[in-house]
């Protein structure tokens, strides 16, 4: 199952995800990362999975689970020095993922 690349590319542009400085401040406030200690379940990991998807890199179903497990609590947005709307970007990626699964 692969997300439609072009749409993910638009998403990466819409939220300017390339601004991510990889500082990891977001991971320290993320409840799903705290519960799992798996980076696919943390904001920095999710943002980079989306970037990798937009580059056409194949992502497997476990990694998709990482996107789906986001609680949209927005704790990450508050601490991101680059001002990325992380939760919203993940939410939009989820929508693309679910739509493509339903097709």
């Amino acid at each position: 199952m692969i997300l439609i690349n072009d749409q993910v590319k638009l998403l990466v542009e819409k939220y300017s995800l390339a601004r991510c400085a990889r500082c990891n401040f977001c991971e320290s406030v993320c409840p799903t990362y705290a519960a799992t200690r798996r980076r696919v379940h943390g904001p920095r990991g999710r943002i980079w999975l989306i970037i990798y998807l937009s580059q056409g890199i194949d992502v497997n179903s476990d990694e998709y689970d990482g996107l789906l497990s986001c609680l949209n609590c927005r704790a990450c947005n508050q601490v991101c020095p680059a001002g990325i709307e992380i939760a919203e970007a993940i939410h939009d990626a989820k929508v693309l993922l679910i739509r493509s699964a339903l097709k």
Partner: protein
Amino acid sequence: MDFEAFRAEVKRIMDSSKIIESRGELMLYSYDASPAEPAIPRMVIQPETTNEVSEVIKLANKYLIPIVPSSGRTSLHGGPIPYNGAVVLDLMRMNKILEVNLEDSYVHVEVGVRLDELNAELARYGYFFPPDPASSAAATVGGSLANGAGGMRGAKYGTVKDWVLGAEVVLPTGEPVFMGCRTLKCRAGYDLLSLVIGSEGTLGVITNAYLKIWPLPEAIVRLRAYFRDVVDAARAVGMVKAKGFRPLIVEFLDRGTMEAVSGYVKEFTYPRDSEAMLIIDLDGPPEAMKRYIDSMVNILKGAGGYGIEWTSDKDEMDRIYMARRAAYPALLRLFSGMRVMPEDISVPPSRLPEAVKGIGSIASKYGLKIVTWGHVGDGNLHPNIIYNPNDQSSVSKLYSVSKELGLMAINLGGTVSSEHGIGVLKKDLLTSELEVKGIAQLRLMKAIKRVFDPNNILNPGKVIDID
């Protein structure tokens, strides 16, 4: 190197939930916060105990598999990047605070605890762990000990090396040992612990540590002053120290920093004729504060400071500090499409004026913008280089600028890395510094690495090359 045999044995001893092999997730371990070339690990292992770390490293040593310790991955010089098909050892699951012991003045902590989490716990007892890298929200105890991290409070409290009593360390051969002591004094032979601290995961994997703790300051007062000349600001720092003050922090912000912050935070204004700003925190007993402030205001004025303000009110202190806190976000937001490389050099505080001027000349020479702040109480400057990651010439200028900054620091009697470490990006600069200080030391460092790690499996190619 027999990766398949290693993999099979790891799978026998580790639960599958602690092993990561899918490509997308492995890629999340390909970078740190630096511009260093990314590299994807072959496997990530997430141990939970010293014993698991030890067993995995024994296997890596047996099958000659390069293995890279990894924590918050906030490094700025490529230290945790797994080159040459290395396996990553992700220590973030070792995240318990094991004991706070006020009588013996230590906290015993596992390495995956972040510094802010540690300090939140210690604050409940009225204590703190002083080293405070700006990344303390995300940086862990293990990564900070391995990187020799420091921060704003460095001038008064030093760096992590001054605050670690003892640590459990798994050697590159897989043997777990306890280095140092639990007591404040410790003369148990050669000081191996000091070799491991700051070794960037090349000499051993730290799994838990006894850290010294300190009572929180009774009272803090914050002062701010502007200066028309950077030289005056640097002179003020020298005068403050010469008068016997040891401020908790002395933060320097150059004009570029103030400009950036004012473009990002509407409420922040600064006098247009100022070239530098100092933020100084003094701590001590509440009764002494008035005397301290009077004396400090005199010193700052005497050095040409103006717009001097001081407060001990929490909100007002936050307002003054906003200029510093907002500096990094301001750079990330204002220069869209660009990246920020926070450089890290130290010079003797008396040479700060020359260093700041030098940074300006290097910026003009290469046409890259550099915005500088720093913990100038100890001569530590962070020139932040703004570059375009998608433009090869901008990236190569970045590396030239980094190199020239390092060489300038050496020439001024300073060092190429104060707290961020060497990783892969500063190996050449380290050699340049050792050429000045005695190149025989490079031979000793290589020999030490070989003694600790005869098969060169632990974070190979970082800090120094042994071949």
